[in-house]
């Protein structure tokens, strides 16, 4: 089994980078088995294609603007994901959505995809999260760990 955990977002824009901060916190606090690959995807799309290709499970952490209370964590899975990422913008922008679409067309789509979206508060230019969003990071990490557990992967808490 191959599991990829992808944190996406721009860490220069406060909460835009919450997905990246979340996966960094995950690897800081947990030891993960070799079958799990954690990627700081930044704002890249196609650059992650190789690693995501043909994974059994793909977990994504991302900022998600859904007009909810800042810090709200939303879990999306399966068919919700392509619909969520569907853009009306143009037929060919190579973000995460297009990376997934390209994999789909190629028959290399990860078999299971779960996305945790965190409602941001601020996109100001700064490298730290807003305090209220930073406070939710442990919960996002817990969500990722629980998701791993559900697919039979034991993330071990590192010694303090």
């Amino acid at each position: 089994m191959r599991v990829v955990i992808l944190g996406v977002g721009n860490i220069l824009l406060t909460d835009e980078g919450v997905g990246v901060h979340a996966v960094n916190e995950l690897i800081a606090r947990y030891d993960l088995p070799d079958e799990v690959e954690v990627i700081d995807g930044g704002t890249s799309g196609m650059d992650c294609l190789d690693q995501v290709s043909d994974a059994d499970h793909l977990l994504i952490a991302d900022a998600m603007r859904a007009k909810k209370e800042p810090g709200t964590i939303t879990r999306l899975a399966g068919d919700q994901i392509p619909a969520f990422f569907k853009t009306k913008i143009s037929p060919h922008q190579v973000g995460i959505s297009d990376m997934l679409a390209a994999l789909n067309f190629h028959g290399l789509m990860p078999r299971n995809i779960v996305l945790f979206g965190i409602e941001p508060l601020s996109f100001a230019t700064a490298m730290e999260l807003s305090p209220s969003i930073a406070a939710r990071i442990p919960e996002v990490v817990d969500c990722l760990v629980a998701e791993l557990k559900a697919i039979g992967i034991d993330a071990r808490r590192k010694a303090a």
Partner: protein
Amino acid sequence: MSKRITIDPITRIEGHLRVDVEVDGGKVTKAWSSGQMWRGVELILLGRDPRDAWAITQRICGVCTTVHAITSVRAVENALNLDIPVNAQFIRNMIISAHAIHDHIVHFYHLSALDWVDVVSALKADPIKTAQLAESLSDWPLNNRHVMTQTLEKLKTFVGSGQLGPFTNGYWGHPAMKLSPEVNLLAVAHYLQALDAQRHANKIVTLLGSKSPHIQNVAVGGVSNPIATDSQSVLTVERLLKLKMHMDALSDFIHKVYLVDIAAIGAFYADWTKYGAGVTNYLSCPDFPMDSKGTKFLVPGGYIPNADLAKYKPITAFGDAYLRDGVEEGVKHAWYKYSKPGPLHPYKGETTPEYTDFQDDGKYSWLKAPTFYGERAQVGPLSSVLAGVAAGHQPTINYATKVLDTASSLLGSKIPLAALHSTIGRHAARAVRCAVMQDVLQQNWQALIDNIGKGDVASFNKPTFPKGEIMGYGFHEAPRGLLSHWTVIKDGKIANYQCVVPSTWNAGPRDDTDKIGPYEASLMDNPIADAEQPLEVLRTIHSFDPCLACAVHVVEDNKEVVQVKAL
């Protein structure tokens, strides 16, 4: 009656580029290019250690991570007047040439080919005829009838499933789509194969840069790749041979597929050599230093005014005074204010926002307007290729000739070099540049092997920062063109930092003298068949490989992208 078309955003990944055009009599009469996102990374860098700047600046953009890392260390090294071990130059050169190849392939096949290729039309293709056509163009082994039949089946299943994926919302059946079903099917086959090809480039970046998408191995003073021929954990002979395997696979794809496809698309869309020239002052820089000081480069660069190759003036070394002293940025039409009137040199650059609404005759963009000795300049592969031709750079001349000759024979009439000053010409130049990058990659691999063979394994010179103020700038001929970082360092801390990025050169708004920028100029007179589906605008803008260095990735609710209103 004239109409105003607003396309916002024009790209997703790179954040927010908005283009407005006024159309009258079926063609564009006025254009505005607007960056819709403030890039304040310069402010984040103030007071920080210059040795950390590269890791932060590579986060500016989701597509151009590597290029900012490299340009940043070059800027700091220039300020310190630091020599770089040649091994470090070779390793960096391999990373940036592989990155460029990746970028060019993905841009053409996955970002812009669908402006020209009608995927739905490909469903009507005869796969046998497609294979015959493909095999007449190239001996690429994946041009055979089995591959074309499989591609057609895949496409049918995909379209039949109702999930068009990357092909959703394409302008299928648009009157400006001209390719036959067979050519469209061939392009779809190569779209899929390009997905495999780009992986080889990505692997090279990952093998050398330790990590992708954000490389980890550069440092002010060199690279952090220890070199040893006998250790597992570092750059070993085994790893170097693995790199070679990926390089050779890329070479095949570029020569047998990309260069051929671009010639074919150019021939079928020869009318697009008439549109999109825009600003024909071309600025590029030399790149791929082969010595420790950055005075000998594999690929030339410089300035060409008014498309006149005879007036080419080269830029010759890191820290070059001709480039250094010519660059300014104006904010008359950008959402910033300066402490004094007129444009500013990047060393004196200021980043103070002053937002107004979108004002047609006032401020309308978060991008500044750069000028070179007071003139607007176009940057990108076309600038680099024209500089190569002007400078007599043989690989550039050879590949450009090959593409133009192939396109000419398909068209049945001679396509001159001057045809490159156009929308489709920018695509052709990008393919030529990609082939040059492939040569550069191979040459640096060989240079690294040879140098290690001589017993030189140095890859890092430790920097020391003096008391007092120093300044420096770094340049890199990035996939989208000339990128420069400018820094002032005081007592070992960053006191000013400005990035003048390729998309600022190309997508910047009107300048202090109200002259329009390259994107805006390139749109003038473009035909618009259907204002509701402004495919032609996308063709021209996408030919620049648009990227605003301010990637915002957050997912938002959908909104209407194209707005049309009668004026």
